[in-house]
C-alpha cells in the first residue's frame, strides 16, 4: 500500500518538476518575439477499483500546449498588413510633401522672381543688365523645376529598389515557411501526434513578416502544415513547396519594375494595387501620387515654356528680329516621341508622337490609346480609341471614321489640348487591332524644362512692327504670325501715317485673302488694305491667285514672312488677315508687358488657374493625401496595437503570473516530496514494528 503512496508521491514530483520546467521556459522566453506562453495540461491518472470504491492512481502530464487564439492572430495578420501599407505610404508621400511645399525647394518664390525679372525688362527694355538678369533668373527657375523633378525621379527609382527587395524578402520568407512546414509535418508524421509549440511560434512569426508586405490568408492542413495565399488569393506556399517572387520590367514602361509569382517556369503578374501591405503602398504611391505629381509639375512647366515661347514669336528682340524660343521647344521631335509609349504586346510596331497644341486645355492625365482599325492601304487609314486614365472617359479618334494618313498624319484631340502624330507604321509588322500605347502628354514636362536663350538681346520685349488682325468672318480657326522681317524698307511694307507731308500720307496696310475654290484648292492674294488692289511684286506682277497649301504655309512678300495656318472645313473656306504697321523700337516693352502679365493671367486648366495656382493645387493635393495618410496611420496603429494586445493577452508571458505558478508548482513539489517522505516513514514504521 505504501508502495502505491510512493508512486503517487513520485508522480506528483515528476509532474510538478515538468510544470516548473515549463514555467522556467516561459520565464526564459519572456522577451522572445512571437513566443506563446506554454502550459502543462495535468490530468488525473484515474483510479483502481477496490471493493469499496476507487483508489486514485495519481497524476500525469497529458500535453504541453501553447496559449494561442487563432482569431486574434488572423486579426493581427490583417492589421499588420494594413499598418505597413499606411506606414510605407505615409513615409513616401511625406518626402514628396516636403519637397513640393518647402519654401526653399518649391517653385513659388523662384516663379515670382522670374516674373519680377520680366517686369524689370519691361521697365527698361533697352538695358542689357535687366535682360541678363532675366536670363539668369530663368535658368535658376528651370533648374528648380528639374531639381524637383529629380527628387521625384529619385523616389521613383528607389521604389524600383523596394520592389526588388520585396521580391527577395518574400521569396526567402516563403522558402522558410515551406521548410518550417516540412519540419512540423515530420514531427507530426513521426507518430507523436503532438504539435511542436516552438516551431508553430516560428511559423507564425514568418506569416506575420509576410503580412507586412501583403494581405495573407492561411489554410491549415490535417498534418499540421499550412498553405499560404497572398493578395487576392495567389498561392505563395503550398505545404513544403514555395513559389518565387520576382521583379520584372513593365510591358509598357521599361523604367518601371513590377512583381510576379514564378513557379516551375510559369510567371504570373501580381496585381500589386490590390495586394495590401507594403506592396500595395508601393504601387499606389507610384501610380497615383508620384505619376500625378510628375504630370502636374510637367503641366506647369509646359504651360510656362509654351506660352512664353509663343509670345516671344509675337514680338521683336533688340536686333528688331522676330523673337526665338526662350525655353526648350515643347514640341521638339524627341519630346513628342517620348510622350507616346508603345506596349510590348506583339501587336505591331509604330512610331507615334504627342504634340502640345493648347496648354489651357492640357490636363495632368495620362491616356491609353488603342488601335480600333488599321489598313496599310493605299490609302493608309487608322482609327484609335483614347481612354483618359484619370477619369475613364473614352473617345473614338477621329470620331467621324478612320483617318486617311495620306491626307494628314496628325490626329487632333481638341478637348485635351494635344494632337497625335502617326509618324510611321512598320511595313513588316503593321498595327493590329487592340495594340496599345500609353500617352503621357505632361509627364516629362519638368524634366525637359530648360532655358534655351543665352543671348539676352534676343528677349523679344518689343512689340512686332506688323500687327495681324484675323478676319471676323473667317470660316474656321486660323492662326498666323510674322516669322521674319527681311526688308522693312520694301515699298509694300506697312507704314504709319505721315503727318508731315501735304496732304497727309495715310497709314499703309496689307490684306491677305486665302480663298478655297473649288473644294480643296486654295489660293491667296495680297492686297493694299486702303485700295483693295493687289500689290505688285515685282512691279507689274500683281500678287493674286497664288497657290496656298492648306493647312499651313509660310508666305514671303513685302519684306516679311508670315506663317498662316487655316482649318479646312467641309464648306468652301475664306480667310482674311489684315496687317497694319505698329510703332515699335528698342524702347518698346509691349511684348514684355504681355509676358510679365502671364504671372497673373489664368492660362491653365481652361482659364481657371495661373501657373502658381496650378502648383498650389499640386502641393495642396499632396498635402491632403499626406495628412489623410497621417490620420490613417494613426488609426491603423491603434488597431494594430489592439490586435497585438489581444494576441499577447492570450499568448504573452506575464512574469508575475509565472512567479505565482513557480510558487504553486514549488508548493506542489514540496507536498509531493512530503508524500514520499511520509510513505518512507510509514514503511519505516512498518519495518520497525516487524523487527
Amino acid at each position, binding site marked *: 500500500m505504501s508502495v502505491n503512496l510512493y508512486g503517487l508521491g513520485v508522480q506528483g514530483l515528476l509532474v510538478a518538476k515538468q510544470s516548473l520546467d515549463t514555467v522556467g521556459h516561459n520565464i526564459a522566453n519572456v522577451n522572445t518575439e512571437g513566443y506563446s506562453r506554454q502550459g502543462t495540461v495535468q490530468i488525473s491518472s484515474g483510479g483502481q477499483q477496490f471493493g469499496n470504491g476507487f483508489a486514485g492512481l495519481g497524476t500525469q502530464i497529458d500535453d504541453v500546449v501553447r496559449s494561442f487564439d487563432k482569431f486574434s492572430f488572423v486579426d493581427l495578420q490583417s492589421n499588420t498588413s494594413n499598418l505597413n501599407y499606411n506606414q510605407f505610404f505615409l513615409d513616401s508621400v511625406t518626402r514628396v510633401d516636403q519637397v513640393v511645399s518647402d519654401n526653399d525647394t518649391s517653385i513659388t518664390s523662384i516663379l515670382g522672381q522670374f516674373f519680377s525679372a520680366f517686369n524689370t525688362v519691361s521697365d527698361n527694355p533697352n538695358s542689357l543688365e535687366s535682360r541678363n538678369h532675366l536670363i539668369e533668373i530663368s535658368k535658376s527657375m528651370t533648374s528648380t523645376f528639374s531639381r524637383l523633378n529629380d527628387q521625384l525621379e529619385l523616389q521613383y527609382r528607389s521604389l524600383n529598389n523596394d520592389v526588388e527587395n520585396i521580391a527577395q524578402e518574400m521569396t526567402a520568407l516563403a522558402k522558410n515557411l515551406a521548410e518550417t512546414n516540412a519540419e512540423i509535418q515530420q514531427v507530426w508524421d513521426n507518430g507523436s501526434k503532438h504539435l511542436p509549440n516552438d516551431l508553430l511560434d516560428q511559423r507564425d512569426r514568418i506569416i506575420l513578416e509576410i503580412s507586412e508586405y501583403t494581405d495573407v490568408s492561411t489554410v491549415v492542413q490535417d498534418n499540421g502544415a499550412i498553405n499560404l495565399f497572398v493578395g487576392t488569393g495567389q498561392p505563395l506556399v503550398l505545404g513544403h513547396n514555395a513559389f518565387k517572387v520576382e521583379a520584372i520590367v513593365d510591358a509598357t514602361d521599361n523604367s518601371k519594375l513590377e512583381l510576379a509569382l514564378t513557379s516551375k517556369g510559369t510567371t504570373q503578374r501580381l496585381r500589386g494595387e490590390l495586394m495590401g501591405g507594403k506592396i500595395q503602398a508601393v504601387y499606389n504611391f507610384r501610380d497615383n501620387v508620384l505619376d500625378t505629381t510628375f504630370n502636374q509639375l510637367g503641366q506647369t512647366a509646359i504651360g510656362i515654356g509654351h506660352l512664353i515661347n509663343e509670345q516671344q514669336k509675337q514680338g521683336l528682340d533688340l536686333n528688331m528680329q522676330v523673337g526665338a524660343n526662350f525655353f526648350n521647344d515643347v514640341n521638339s521631335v524627341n519630346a513628342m516621341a517620348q510622350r507616346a509609349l508603345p506596349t510590348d504586346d506583339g501587336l505591331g510596331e509604330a512610331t507615334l508622337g504627342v504634340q502640345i497644341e493648347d496648354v489651357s486645355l492640357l490636363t495632368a492625365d495620362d491616356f491609353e490609346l488603342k488601335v480600333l482599325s488599321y489598313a496599310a492601304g493605299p490609302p493608309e487609314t487608322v482609327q484609335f480609341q483614347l481612354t483618359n486614365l484619370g477619369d475613364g472617359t473614352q473617345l473614338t479618334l477621329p470620331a467621324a471614321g478612320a483617318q486617311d494618313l495620306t491626307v494628314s498624319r496628325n490626329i487632333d484631340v481638341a478637348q485635351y489640348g494635344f494632337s497625335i502624330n502617326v509618324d510611321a507604321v512598320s511595313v513588316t509588322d503593321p498595327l493590329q487591332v487592340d495594340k496599345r500605347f500609353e500617352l503621357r502628354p505632361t509627364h516629362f514636362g519638368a524634366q525637359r524644362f530648360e532655358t534655351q536663350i543665352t543671348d539676352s538681346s534676343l528677349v523679344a520685349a518689343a512689340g512686332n512692327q506688323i500687327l495681324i488682325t484675323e478676319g471676323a468672318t473667317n470660316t474656321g480657326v486660323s492662326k498666323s504670325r510674322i516669322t521674319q522681317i527681311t526688308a522693312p524698307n520694301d515699298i509694300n511694307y506697312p507704314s504709319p501715317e505721315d503727318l508731315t507731308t501735304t496732304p497727309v500720307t495715310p497709314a499703309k496696310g496689307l490684306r491677305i485673302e486665302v480663298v478655297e475654290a473649288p473644294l480643296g484648292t486654295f489660293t491667296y492674294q495680297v492686297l493694299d488694305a486702303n485700295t483693295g488692289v493687289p500689290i505688285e511684286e515685282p512691279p507689274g506682277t500683281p500678287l493674286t491667285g497664288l497657290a496656298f497649301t492648306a493647312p499651313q504655309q509660310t508666305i514671303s512678300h513685302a519684306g516679311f514672312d508670315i506663317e498662316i495656318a487655316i482649318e479646312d472645313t467641309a464648306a468652301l473656306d475664306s480667310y482674311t488677315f489684315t496687317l497694319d504697321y505698329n510703332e515699335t523700337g528698342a*524702347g518698346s516693352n509691349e511684348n514684355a508687358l504681355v509676358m510679365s502679365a502671364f504671372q497673373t493671367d489664368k492660362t491653365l486648366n481652361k482659364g481657371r488657374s495661373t501657373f502658381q495656382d496650378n502648383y498650389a493645387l499640386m502641393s495642396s493635393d499632396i498635402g491632403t493625401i499626406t495628412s489623410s495618410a497621417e490620420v490613417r496611420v494613426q488609426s491603423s496603429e491603434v488597431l494594430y496595437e489592439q490586435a497585438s494586445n489581444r494576441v499577447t493577452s492570450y499568448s504573452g508571458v506575464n512574469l508575475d503570473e509565472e512567479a505565482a505558478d513557480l510558487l504553486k508548482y514549488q508548493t506542489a513539489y514540496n507536498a509531493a516530496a512530503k508524500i514520499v517522505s511520509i510513505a518512507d516513514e510509514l514503511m519505516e514504521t512498518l519495518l520497525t514494528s516487524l523487527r
Partner: protein
Amino acid sequence: MRISTQTFFQRNTTSILESQARTSNLNVHLTEGKRVLHGSDDPVAIATIQRLKQTISVNEQYVKNIEVADAANAQEESTLGQMVNVLQRVRELMVSAGDGIYSLENLETVAQELEELKEELVGLGNTRDGHSEYIFAGYDVDTKPFQVNEFGQVEFLGDKGVRELQVGSGVDAAINDSGFDLMMNLSSGNGSFKSTLGAANTGSGVIEQGVVFDPAIASSFQGEEYSIHITEPGAGLPTEYSVYSIEAASVAGAATVKLATVDLNDPAITSVNPADVYPGVNSAVNVVFFATATPGEFEVQINGQSSLPTIYDANTATAQQISIDGMTVEVEGIPLAADTYQINKYIAPTQYNQGQSIEFNGVRTSLKGEPLDKDAFTLTPSSNTDIFTTIQSAIDAMRIPGDTDTQEALRLTRLNMAQLELDNGLDHIVNTRSRVGARMQTLISQTSISEEFKLVSQTAMSKLEDLDMAKAISDLQLEQTKLEVAQQTFVQLQRLNLFDLIR
C-alpha cells in the same frame, strides 16, 4: 485582461516615444515660427498661402514699377516745366515785338534771343534719363530725337511710341510722351486758317486771323484756300475788295496752286473772271494743266484761256507765277497733265472800309490799314507745323528788312500768326504737363492700393501660416509634462514585481 510583461514594457516605451515625437514636432514648428510648414500641416491653407505669396510678390512688383514710372514721370514733368518757361519767354518777346515800337536794331536783338531760346528748346527735347535714354524719343530711345538738318530745320527722328508699365492689377501707366506729339504736331495759324499777305502787296493792309463762326457751313467748303483781293476802280472811287477761293478739283499730280493776284482793271479780265458769285451758276472757273512737247513743261489754261507762250516749267524747283488776262496763279511742284483746280468767287467787289469784318462761308476775318490795288490777302486751311518752325517764322518776321508800312504790315501779320501758333503749342505742352501730373497722382494712389493689398495679404498669410506662440509654448509644456508623467509611471510600475517579493 491579461497583460503580458512584454506588452507592459512595449506600451510604456511606445507612449514615451510618441510623446517625444510630438515634442520634437512642436519644437520644429516653434523654431520656425510657422504653423504650416508643409502641405500636410494644412492642405487647404498651403494653397492659399502660396497664392498669397504670389499676391504679395506681384504687389511688391507693382510698387517697384511705380517707382520706375514715378521717376520717369517726375523727370518728364520737370523738363516740361522748363519748356513752359522757355516758351513763355518766347511769347513775351513776340508780344513786345508785335507792338510795333521796337526799332529794327531792337528787333534783331530780340531775334537773337529767340534763336537762343529755340536752341534751348531743342536741348530740352533731347533730355536723357538715368539710363542715357532720350525721354522724348518714343521707342527709339537711343536716337537723339530732335536734330537740326542741313536747311536749319529741326527734324524729329524718334517715333510715336509710348511705353507703359503695369502699376496695378489692370492698371497701366505711361512713362513717357513722344516728342512728336509734344512739339511736332501743331496746327498752323489759329487752328482753322493761316493768314498771309500776298507776296506782291504794296499797301499797308493787314489781315486778322480767319475765325470759323459757323462750323456747319464752313465745313462744307473744307480744303478751299480763300483770298481777298483789292481793287482800286479808278481815281476818286472807293477801294473795293472781292473774295475768291481756289481748290483742287481733279488732281493726280503733286503741285500746289495758289491764286496770287486778281487785276479787275485788266481789260481782258472777264474772260477768266467768274461772271457770277457763289451760289450762282457761273461762279467758278477752272485752272487746267496741259502737257507740252517738252516733258515737265506745262501749258496752263484758266477758263479755257491759254497761258502760251508762257509755260510752267516743273523742272525748276521754284514757284512760278502765271498770269492770264489779269488772273495770276502761283504754281509750285510737279503737276500732271489734266490736273484741274477750281477758282470760286464768293464776294463780288464791295467797298472797303478799314477794320470792317468780312464774312463768307461761315468764316469771318477783317482787314486793317490801307491796302492798294492788286494787293491780296490769303486764308490758307490750317496744316501741320511744329514749334521750332513757328519760332523760326517769328525770327524771320523780325528780320524782314526795312520799316515801310508794307513791310511793317507783313511783319505784323507774320508775328501775329506765329503768336497764335505758339499759344497753341504752349497749350499743348501745358496740357501734357497736367496729364503727367495726373499720371503721377494715379501712381500715388496705386502705391497706396498696392501697399494696402500687400498688407492685407501679409496679415491673411500670417494668420494662416504663423504659429500662435502662446498656444504652441503651452502645448509644448503640456507635452513635456505628459512625457515626464509617462517616464515616472513606467519607473514606478516596473518596480511592482512579484519576484522582488519572493525571498
